[in-house]
């Protein structure tokens, strides 16, 4: 690579400035979180007497164990169910090419760019009628449905490229469509299923609007939804609000750092295919 020395340093400086722009906000809230609760510190001051206790206070007041359990419950209810039904639908549309596959695909693709806020009001009335309003199911069921356009589209993109011979060979051996699906096609589809699972887990964990509208009790929400409620309570106590925000971010950050390669590539592929 022939790049002039000056340009090299200019480029690296630009990169470092951008990284600082990304990181500084996190450092700012971290330092603020260590100031005495109830004070209004500057945005970038190391406290004279760091109040690590703020994290404990926020942990207790935000009922973190309950929040974690609730978020995990919702993710574990949404992601596997959505994966199974979207993979089955993608298989039928992309590989079995059932009659009406094109219409079905169009129907699902139609929902790809649908903003959640566009249909949130009828969902609210529907859930009141079904009696699931203000329960975790109120978040779980619509989320599974709202992921279907992307998930079916994604899985179909995998199955449509699978050679038909694979199933034919097995069919000669007497396998049913059901067996074929579970024993041959699902194992082969593991990479796209894994990426889809990562994406849906992140989206679920970060879901806010559905929580705000459909569940009043913060401890029945996801992390992001609970954070919104926490903000309402501690609008005037900046250090505690910052401490709570950090606590809520920690699980995401740990998972991101551990699985950064998979997460980045899943999110990039997700947007490219979507």
């Amino acid at each position, binding site marked *: *690579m022939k790049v002039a020395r000056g340009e090299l340093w200019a480029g690296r400086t630009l990169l470092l400035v951008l990284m600082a722009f990304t990181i500084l906000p996190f450092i700012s809230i971290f330092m603020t979180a260590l100031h005495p609760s109830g004070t209004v510190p500057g945005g970038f001051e190391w406290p004279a007497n760091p109040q690590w206790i703020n994290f404990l206070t926020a942990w207790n007041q935000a009922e973190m164990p309950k929040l974690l359990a609730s978020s995990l419950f919702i993710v574990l209810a949404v992601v596997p169910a959505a994966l199974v039904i*979207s993979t089955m639908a993608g*298989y039928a549309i992309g590989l079995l090419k059932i009659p009406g596959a094109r219409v079905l695909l169009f129907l699902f693709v139609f929902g790809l760019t*649908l903003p959640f806020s566009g249909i949130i009001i009828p969902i609210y009335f529907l859930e009141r009628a079904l009696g699931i309003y203000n329960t975790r199911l109120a978040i779980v069921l619509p989320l599974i*449905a709202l992921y279907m356009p992307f998930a079916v589209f994604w899985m179909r993109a995998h199955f449509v490229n699978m050679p038909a011979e694979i199933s034919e060979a097995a*069919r000669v051996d007497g396998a049913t469509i059901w067996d074929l699906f579970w024993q041959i096609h699902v194992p082969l589809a593991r990479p796209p299923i894994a990426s889809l699972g990562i994406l849906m887990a992140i989206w679920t964990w970060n879901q806010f609007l559905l929580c*705000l509208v459909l569940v009043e009790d913060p401890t029945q929400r996801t992390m992001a939804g609970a954070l919104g409620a926490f903000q309402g309570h501690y609008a005037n106590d900046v250090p505690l609000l910052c401490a709570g925000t950090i606590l809520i971010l920690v699980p995401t950050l740990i998972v991101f750092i551990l699985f950064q390669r998979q997460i980045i590539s899943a999110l990039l592929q997700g947007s490219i295919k979507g």
Partner: protein
Amino acid sequence: MTMATPSKSTVTSGMTSDNRHPAAEISRRIFRPRKIRREDVVGWLFVLPALIMYTVFVIVPFISTIQYSFFKWNGVSPATWVGLRNYANIFQVPNLIGTVINAFWLVVWFSVIPVGLGLIVASVIHRVATGRLGTISRTVLFLPQVIPLVAAGIIWGWLLALPGLINQSLKAFGLGALTRAWLGDFDTALPAVGMVGIWVLLGFCIVLLLTGMTKVDPSLYESARLDGAGWFTEFTAVTVPLLRYEIGVCLTVTVVAALAAFDIIWVTTAGGPGSSTSVPGVQIYILGFTQRAIGPASALAVMLMALVVLVIIPIQYLTKEKKQ
């Protein structure tokens, strides 16, 4: 497997029917004349769970939204038909049409700036950042994309507050006169919210464009450089034309994020001060759930959904056509 069939029929789906196979007995039972139909029925059963969920929680609510938009309804007492009045209302009430205008301003902040800046930055980084620095920067720049938007909103709500980091830095550079409560000022609230969008989306655009650049044939860059092309020539002659598709993806994702924005704005300003940062998503929530004006809220929702589609289609068309 109940129906016995007299003989094995010719299989229509182009399948090599291997009768000599030892498992011929089984194949005979599977490749019955009605095989196609049966497979189709099973195929439809495979789609059914997804289709039912999607219909109940997306398609039906979508139709209901359109239906509600023609009524005056508070959610409790009987609804009255008002025809297109809710739509006419959107254009007559400054607060409502204002949300649509604000949404387009947000497109500048959430979409035009991150994609434009992202292209420039990515092309610079592409030339210099290889190896470790490249990997680390990818992770760091992507970070805002994985945290909840609510958290991004809370963090920036504090940074942009009077004692926050932004004002503190301005003072440090002797620009104390510029300090203000950025999110509370009618003139600066929208750009301030836009900053949050840039912070969230810039890294995503950079990483996505960088990934696209690595797929461009290196010999193109090589020959451009042999011809003595500087950064700018390389940018306009190689990078932008070859990255049309990736640019289209960035635009699509960020435009949807701008038009359908809710989380960031709800957490930082809730649409205020006045309605200077109110966008359709926020206004739908306020109309529907605090003012119980279901009709106007639904009309705005229909407008929003139509708007997103109308803006996305040309972007998709322009960036996909020219790729070939």
